[in-house]
């Protein structure tokens, strides 16, 4: 019954309007259509400012698209009401470029990771059960137990991105939009995080939209690659050097 495509985007547009008196319109997304298959990683490349991030956020309706439809697992999420959308949100997650600002600076790492569990996204869990699960997840992403009580500013960028990943695993989504997840990290750390993401992706059977301006990284991560320019998708092609055939990443 479920189709091969997890995500189907049709005619998606986003126009930003600014100014009350001197209306100013900017068309950031212009009639974008594409599919993402189940279990696939679609890479999205393009220069900065071409609308990649807006597209990523629109897919999760973190930004309201102006027109077009987004079908997630057979449901058009652009037509969902607030309550319905809220109940679907946990099935799709986003990884942001700056790991630090994607964590609440006033929340301990452990609390950030356990938040989805405490909100009951994985069913009712006892305190002890949650704690055990958090430590387990932290270990999966390569964090030490002593990080539990730290605050984001006390951790490095790479460690914070691991926290973000642990938190997302706690949510257990089907689809992830990764928006330049390594762009703000040191090159050596980049490689570690990318490797971790690939491991997690295959272990948890995730579908992913991987956004980057770095073609090298996208080639490494993706099954197919979409090229974006000025708010439009120029072309989508099969990645010949997909991850299975590229065992190592030349990132210094």
């Amino acid at each position, binding site marked *: 019954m479920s189709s091969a495509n997890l995500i189907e985007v049709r005619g998606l547009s986003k126009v930003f309007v*600014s100014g*009350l*008196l*001197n209306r100013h319109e900017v068309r950031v997304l212009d009639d974008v259509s594409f599919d993402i298959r189940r279990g696939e990683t679609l890479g999205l490349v393009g220069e900065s400012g071409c609308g990649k991030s807006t597209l990523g956020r629109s897919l999760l309706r973190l930004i309201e698209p102006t027109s077009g439809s987004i079908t997630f697992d057979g449901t058009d999420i652009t037509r969902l009401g607030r309550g319905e959308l809220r109940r679907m949100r946990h099935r799709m997650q986003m990884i942001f470029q700056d790991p630090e600002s994607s964590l609440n600076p006033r929340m301990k790492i452990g609390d950030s990771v356990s938040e989805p569990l405490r909100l009951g996204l994985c069913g009712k869990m006892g305190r002890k059960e949650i704690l055990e699960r958090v430590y387990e997840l932290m270990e999966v992403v390569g964090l030490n137990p002593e990080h539990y009580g730290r605050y984001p500013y006390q951790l490095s960028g790479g460690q914070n991105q691991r926290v973000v990943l642990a938190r997302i695993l706690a949510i257990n989504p089907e689809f992830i939009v990764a928006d330049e997840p390594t762009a703000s990290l040191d090159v050596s750390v980049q490689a570690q995080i990318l490797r971790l993401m690939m491991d997690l992706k295959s272990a948890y059977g995730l579908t992913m939209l991987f956004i980057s301006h770095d073609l090298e990284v996208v080639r490494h991560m993706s099954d197919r690659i979409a090229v974006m320019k000025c708010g439009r998708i120029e072309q989508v092609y099969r990645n010949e050097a997909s991850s299975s055939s590229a065992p190592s990443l030349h990132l210094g």
Partner: protein
Amino acid sequence: MKIFLLRRALVLLPVMLLVSLFSFALIHMAPGDPAEILLTSPAGGADRAAVEDFRTKMGFDQPLPVQYLRWLGRAIQGDLGYSYMTGQPVCSAILASFESTLRLSLLSMVLSLLASIPLGIWSAMRPGSFPDHIGRWLALLGVSVPNFWLAYLLILMFAIHLKWFPVAGYGNGGDLMHMVLPAIALGAASASVTIRLMRSSMLDVLQQDYIIAARAKGLGGWQVALGHAMKNALIPVATISGLNFGYMLNGSVVVETIFAWPGIGGLVVSSIYQRDYPMIQGVTLFVALLFLSINLLVDLFYAVLNPGIRYERE
């Protein structure tokens, strides 16, 4: 810039509407019936028939929205009614007392700037030095001392002991000698704010390239500070002074009462003692419009000086 002006004016409209509604509400939320209060003399109650008659004459029997519109229409023409106490038109009483307040505030502003700018510059030239510490503590004290206490300390010292100035009063049409003590009491708080602002804006300016270049040309520290840096450092001080001018209205309430200065602050206090609601209403409306105008002017001044600033919706 034009757009900024337009938007600023657009925002002001609903605010002024609310302000007028609030002022209007003052008299109708007051305990008791306005007509009755108006006709009740200290000697005894009012005559029933006279109250009814007066109520009709003043339009107090009309529905509130009608009363509001009428009142607003009159207020726009400068007719704010008559004082319950003196029978004087509220508007002319306000304008007369505002003139006294304005004189006092101006002197207060001058004194406050004369004291704070040099101290601010001095503090900035030698951060951490003795004058800097003095400036810091004076500024802290200035915002912590109640102005009514300061007023009495000044009277005690300079009027009673040293007899340099009169204790209180308006003197001969508000002469300078009668103005000095209230002006100091009124200006202390704004001087404190200005000291700190002058210091920090001076420090900012002194960090900038053209100042460093001037230094490199071999000009001395004070020469650069007074010749080049001060002018630019004064811009934020000018802005805050505009705002301080508005805040002095707050201080005038107590200071004018103490020094028996016939200004708008003293007027509102005596109106409250006498339950003179038309006067309270008029003064409240007047100071609000004054305050709004001052803020608008300060914003314009700031916009003219900083054309680069974008006025997006914050």
